[in-house]
Every structure is written in C-alpha cells, then in structure tokens.
C-alpha cells in the first residue's frame, strides 16, 4: 500500500504548484455556473407548469453549483499523461516498477482528479455560497451521506477512466474513444440536464447505468431531495460499488490481454 500512497502524495504536490491555473479555472467555473443558473432561472420564471417540476429552484441552483465545483472528479476523458505514456512507450517504465500496473494507474487517476478539484472547489463553494445561491446541505446526515457518496463516485469514476485508458492499448491514437466518452458521461450523469428533469421514459435506463451515481445521486442527497436515510443511501451506495467492481474487473482483464500483445512504441 505504501508505494501507492506515495504516488498519491507526489501527484498532489506536483499539481498544487499550478496556482495561477487554478485561479483561472475558478473564474471560468464561476462564469459557466452563472450562465447555467441564469438559463434555469429563465426557464423557471415563466413556466406555466412550475408546480409539476420535480425540483424546486433552490435545489436546481445548488445542483448546478455542485456540478461546477466537482466537475474535475468526472471521467471526462482519459488522462493526458496516460495517453502520452502509451503513445511514447513510457508504459515500459511503469511496467518495470514493482507495483501492479493497473493499481498504479488507478491511484494516479484518483490523485489527478482529487488535487485540482479540492483546490478549486473550496473557494467555489465559498463564493457560490455567499453570492450565487448555493445552499448548505439540508442536514448533518445529508452532509455525511453526500461526502460518502462522493468518495464512492470518485472510486467509480477512476475505474471508468482507467478502462478507457486501457482501451488505448488497441487504438494507440486514443482520439476516438476519448471523444465518445465525454458526451455520454455529460448526458447520463446529470451534468447536462439534472436527471429528474429528463423525460420519464428515460428514467429506467438512467437508473440502471452507472453515470447517475457520478453526479445526480450525490447532489440530490446534498439538497435533501433524496432523504439521507439508510433506506435510501444504502441501495445507492451498493449500486455504485457494484459498478465500481465491474469496471475494475473488466479494466484489469483488458489490461492483461493488452499487455500480452503490447508493443512498446519508441525507444
């Protein structure tokens, strides 16, 4: 376990160097959040069927801001560094290390997502909370359940992104799949449109897929739409964990196949 935690720590230290980039990122996220909040505000303000909307305006605003704050945790694409490793042959170095390659990548993925997100999200929570209508969690249990579900979501997200990285062992350029994954994550997680507002006929599909756990479920626990009781949280946590296990397993299997035929590029 020790080498993995060292890997995590190293990534943190490296990423925390880029403070200007983080500040620029924060401003960007605030701007985007504001655009989205204003669009939803406009939809709400004149809607004839406001009563039938399954989320109230305050919950929707919190949902948008949480999305902006935690954007970086999502498996948007494969990590650029991993893509470079596969393309340039850096994989060979990773293979030489006395660690399991899959978990080496997995922990790197976790670190790459966590460090910048922590750096960005804390000031964003403060600014959006003070000025732009982000409410605190509805209760202490909601806070705890939300944090727990966010950690589980992170573990699943990284298993997903590793799977995509590993698929590059076959395509090398990796451009293709890495472009197909983001729209799928964007649409089915709730980042695009909060999932309760999606059409009713899509709900069974959305419930079965893993993506809901990345955004929608934790956010609605936060705003109290899903009550933070064991009755609701346990099934959601199990659903996330089951998907994580499935993604981890298929990632490892794929990696084994990939390594058998791997030709290291470059020299």
């Amino acid at each position: 376990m020790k080498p993995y935690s060292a890997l995590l720590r190293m990534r943190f230290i490296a990423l925390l160097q880029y403070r200007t980039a983080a500040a620029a990122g924060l401003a960007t996220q605030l701007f985007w959040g504001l655009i989205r909040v204003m669009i939803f505000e406009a939809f709400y303000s004149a809607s004839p069927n406001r009563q039938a909307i399954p989320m109230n305006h305050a919950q929707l605003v919190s949902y948008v801001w949480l999305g902006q704050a935690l954007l970086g945790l999502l498996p948007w694409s494969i990590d650029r560094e991993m893509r470079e490793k596969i393309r340039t042959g850096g994989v060979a170095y990773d293979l030489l290390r006395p660690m399991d390659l899959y978990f080496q990548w997995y922990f790197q993925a976790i670190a790459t997502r966590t460090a910048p997100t922590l750096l960005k999200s804390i000031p964003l929570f403060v600014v959006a909370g003070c000025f732009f209508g982000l409410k605190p969690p509805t209760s202490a249990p909601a806070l705890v359940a939300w944090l727990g579900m966010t950690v589980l979501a992170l573990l699943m997200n990284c298993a997903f992104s590793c799977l995509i990285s590993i698929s590059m062992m076959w395509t090398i350029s990796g451009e293709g799949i890495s472009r197909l994954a983001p729209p799928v994550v964007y649409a089915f997680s709730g980042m695009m449109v909060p999932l309760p507002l999606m059409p009713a006929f899509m709900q069974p599909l959305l419930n079965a897929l893993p993506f809901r756990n990345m955004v929608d479920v934790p956010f609605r626990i936060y705003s109290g739409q899903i009550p933070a009781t064991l009755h609701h949280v346990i099934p959601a946590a199990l659903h996330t964990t089951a998907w994580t296990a499935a993604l981890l397993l298929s990632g490892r299997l794929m990696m084994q196949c990939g390594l058998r035929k791997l030709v290291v590029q470059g020299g």
Partner: protein
Amino acid sequence: MPGHGHINGMKLYLRYVSISIRSQLQHRASFVMMLLGSLLTTGIEFAGIAALFARFGTLRGWSLPEVGVFYGVINIAFALSEGFARGFDTFPAMVKSGDFDRLLLRPRSLCLQVAAGEVQLMRSGRLLQGGVVLWWSLSNLHLVLTRLGSALLAVAVVTAAVVFTALFIAQAALAFWTVESLEIMNTVTYGGTETAQYPLTIYRPWFRRFFTFVIPIAFANYLPINLLLHHSAPLSAFAVLCAAPIAAALFASAAMIAWSAGVRHYHSTGS
C-alpha cells in the same frame, strides 16, 4: 514583385488546408469516431434543450424552434471560426515550445501561417448539426425567408464567426505575455457559444450588456434574429444590417492590434 515559385496568400492557405485535411484522413477509423463524437456531443446538447422545453413548456415566451434558430446560427458560426482559426486556439503551445520562431523566419503573413496550421475536419460535425437544427427550426416555424430575412440570417452568422475568430486571435495574442494558455479565455469563446444559444434577453442586464458592448455577440443574436422571427419594420432591420458589420469590424481590429502588439513583444522561450 514576387520571385519565382512564390504563390499568393490564398493559394498557400488552401494548400495548407489540403495538407492538413489529407493528414487527418490518414487515420480513417479514428477520424470517423471523432466525427461521430463531435456530432454526438452537439446532438445531445440540443436534445438536452428539448428536454428542458418538454418540462418547462416555454423559455420566457420563446418556443423551442425559436431558440433553435439562435442555436443553429451560433453553432454554424462557431464551427466556421473554429475551422478557420483553430491554429490560434492551440497557439500557446507553440509559444511555449519555441516553435513560433520558425514561423517568424518564413516570409509569409504570420496570421495566415498560424490559422492554416491546423484545420480540423472533425469540427464539421458541429457545422452539420447546427445546419440541421436551423433548418428544422425554420421549417417548424413556417418561416418563409424573404430577401431581408436571409440577409439578417447571413449577417448574424458572419458577425458571430468574425467575433469568435477575433476572440481566438485575442486569446493567442495573450499567450505572448502569459506563455501558459489560460483556461479563462474559454469563458468568452465556448462560454459565448453556450450563452448565445439562447436569446440574450433571458439573461440578467449586466450580463446582456457585457455581450453587447464588450463582446458584440448581441449583433449576431437577439438584434437580427428577433427581427427575423417577428417580421419587424424593414427600417430597424436595415439599421441592424448596417450596425452588425461595423461592430464586428471594430472588434476584429481590436484583436488584430493586440496580436501585432504581441508579436512585437515576443521573446523566444528557446527550445
């Protein structure tokens, strides 16, 4: 008098473009996936807007096909300027690596070389999708395009394309000072597209003013399209047809001034 073997700027640009396109077609499977991805991204986006309309009914009085006109215009324009000026978008990497030095050595316009450096076919996904949404919206509104209407539509697309191209150039110019590419410029390029997919009237006043007087997207958005959709008096249409190109030209000149100032300021990072 150009010497032997010199070709004019336009011809050179087209040659750059054809090389760039041919190189992208080398990886055909990857290209198809990328095009699909680009189509999927923009297609899903409009489906998302449609889902919101299904829930809320209306957006401050605007209907889905009406918003679709705004959406189509801005996406066509953005795809055009992205296709043309993508080289400026990736330009900071060139400054950082010192590759820009090479361009300075060539006896050709810098803007041309940077613009033509990377022309991405994949962006045609957005162009296609914007066109389809625009066509769908216009036919759903039973809007017969008069000559004035088509002029308004064309002016909207061209104005937006010029504004976005100018923004890409300004973003590249910024890199002469910052060296690092700054994510923050995305707020006005990609953020501007996101914003202008809807009529600007739905936003708060300060925000509307920003996208009218600082970045003149309003001249490609509410001003012409509202006239187009509501058949307003020809006189105001005429005023918009005159004002929009002026606003776009002013904005583009500001970007070009920033670019030349940047080139003068440039110190190589070495390599």
